[in-house]
């Protein structure tokens, strides 16, 4: 069961080969055995999960099952879930038991899925290694001395170690795709606006987007079918006809135009990653795709623009954490201003404080035009690069991350080095485009390499089609870390 796809588990439930209670217990026991080593989960609550599993079994028995009924799904601890501790990886929310459900949680509940637990993450999703969590770093199941990527590293590690068959994450600058790549699994960041942000703790609202993690593209499609939904409580949610993301999976790739951006194969890309991505491109050509050289000339400006826009929005979003209405409050303080300052100094970790300060500065009087407005203009240039690219190709393909997973502690002392992990993923967030990462081989130290696929707006089905056809011809996505018993 632990190694099966969501699709196979759903079939097993439908054929009564096992019950949701048995399935949920199997994953809970796997979590019990391995979470001490990998620290992928912040909260597990067997009683709550099993109650949902029993309800799912009852629903299956009456023939009212939907595709995900009875399937255990782990959720990043950024999605609030009613009566569940929801920390966002931070001390400042270390006592926050949510009074309501995020839209994404409501959707999974309505589908009859089982909430398997809340996964560990970089504090407030700010990071690329899952080391900045107040609850300790997540470790990579392929090598416990390495990071799993971030910020949704707990979700990625949970699937890589077979502690969950599926999970959710959020992606502001690469936080689904980069951990998927570094942990050897699949992840999808949908088009901005496709998945509701209601109940998803806000980091940078114009970039944040929730999405699924799984072992295969086919499973991602099943999860996205549940997650993608119009929601009037999210002011940027997009109203469009419902789509079945599995409908295009079997389309052959003959004639597909694969755009390969020069800029993503230059200096800074490790040779082992480059070789695995080249082999994947050759495989796509073998499947009938045509390789088209494209240019994303402003790609190099995406990291600088991102580190203005994301911290600016974060400094505004995180002003709500003041120790008054919920969350942590400092013990000793002289007056109200002192209470705010101590609460926030003690409640936020170093990276979060750094980003709040960057954001406060770039939005302060006299600097707005030079930083925020400038970054928004550059954002347009980056989005325009993709408009040009998609005139010549159907999907943009390259590496997800310039390196394989790095050692825990290797980049924590140099924020700029950490930021450069997301150099290939950030452009899709700035442009609002859908993008995925799927496993495409192994690099140095036997660590996984991710293939990055970017599509045009609302081309999720196309991305999943390309990924599924690639996965029918290869078995990288079926590999699992050795020695996890």
């Amino acid at each position: 069961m632990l190694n099966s796809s969501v699709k196979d588990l759903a079939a097993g439930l439908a054929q009564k080969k096992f019950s949701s209670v048995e399935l949920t217990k199997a994953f809970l026991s796997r979590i019990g055995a391995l979470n001490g080593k990998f620290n992928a989960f912040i909260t597990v609550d067997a009683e709550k999960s099993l109650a949902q599993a029993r309800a799912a079994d009852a629903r299956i028995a009456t023939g009212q099952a939907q595709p995900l009924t009875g399937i255990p799904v782990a959720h990043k601890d950024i999605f609030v879930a009613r009566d569940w501790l929801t920390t966002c990886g931070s001390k400042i929310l270390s006592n926050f038991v949510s009074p309501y459900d995020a839209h994404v949680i409501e959707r999974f509940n309505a589908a009859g899925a089982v909430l398997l637990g809340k996964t560990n993450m970089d504090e407030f999703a700010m990071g690329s290694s899952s080391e900045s969590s107040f609850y300790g770093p997540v470790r990579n199941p392929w090598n416990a001395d390495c990071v799993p990527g971030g910020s949704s590293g707990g979700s990625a590690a949970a699937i890589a170690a077979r502690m969950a068959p599926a999970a959710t994450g959020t992606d502001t600058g690469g936080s689904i795709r980069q951990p998927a790549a570094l942990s050897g699994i699949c992840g999808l960041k949908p088009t901005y606006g496709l998945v509701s942000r209601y109940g998803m703790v806000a980091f940078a609202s114009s970039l944040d987007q929730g999405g699924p993690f799984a072992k295969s593209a086919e499973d991602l499609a099943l999860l996205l079918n549940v997650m993608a939904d119009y929601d009037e409580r999210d002011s940027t949610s997009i109203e469009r006809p419902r789509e079945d993301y599995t409908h295009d999976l079997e389309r052959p790739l003959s004639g597909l135009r694969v755009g390969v951006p020069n800029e993503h194969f230059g200096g800074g890309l490790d040779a082992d990653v480059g070789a695995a991505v080249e082999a994947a491109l050759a495989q796509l050509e073998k499947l009938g795709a045509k390789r088209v050289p494209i240019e994303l000339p402003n790609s190099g400006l995406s990291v600088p623009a991102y580190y203005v826009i994301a911290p600016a929005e974060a400094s505004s979003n995180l002003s709500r954490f003041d120790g008054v209405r919920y969350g942590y409050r400092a013990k000793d303080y002289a007056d109200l201003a002192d209470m705010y300052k101590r609460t926030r100094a003690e409640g936020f970790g170093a990276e979060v404080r750094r980003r709040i300060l960057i954001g406060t500065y770039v939005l302060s009087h006299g600097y707005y035009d030079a930083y925020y407005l400038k970054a928004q203009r550059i954002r347009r240039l980056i989005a325009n690069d993709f408009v040009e690219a998609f005139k010549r190709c159907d999907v943009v393909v390259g590496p997800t991350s310039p390196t394989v997973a790095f050692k825990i502690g290797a980049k924590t002392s140099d924020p700029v080095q950490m930021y450069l992990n997301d150099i290939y993923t950030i452009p899709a967030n700035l442009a609002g485009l859908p993008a995925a990462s799927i496993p495409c081989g192994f690099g140095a130290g036997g660590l996984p390499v991710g293939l990055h696929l970017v599509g045009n707006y609302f081309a999720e089905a196309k991305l999943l089609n390309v990924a599924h056809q690639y996965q029918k011809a290869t078995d990288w996505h079926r590999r699992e870390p050795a020695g996890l018993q």
Partner: protein
Amino acid sequence: MPLTPEEVRAIAELARIGISDAEARTMQAELNKIFELIGRMQKVDTEGIAPMTHAQGVALRLRPDKVTEPDQRERFLKLAPQNEAGLYLVPKVIE
């Protein structure tokens, strides 16, 4: 232009985050490296380029001015570090 430790303390004050002198010096070095990275933007000519505020360029929706939320006052108040008589408690602001 590089930030001074005094400027870092002033920004922290605006952000309502307490900071010690030692922390301000560490933060100053880190922020200056980050602003060096950000500074690469300044070389680009963006004259005449419209700022992009939102990926889809959609306008915010309007909704009818109707009550849609149920009253959950007690439930929400319970989450507060301190509350009394249906109010959030904070240190006295006016003597």
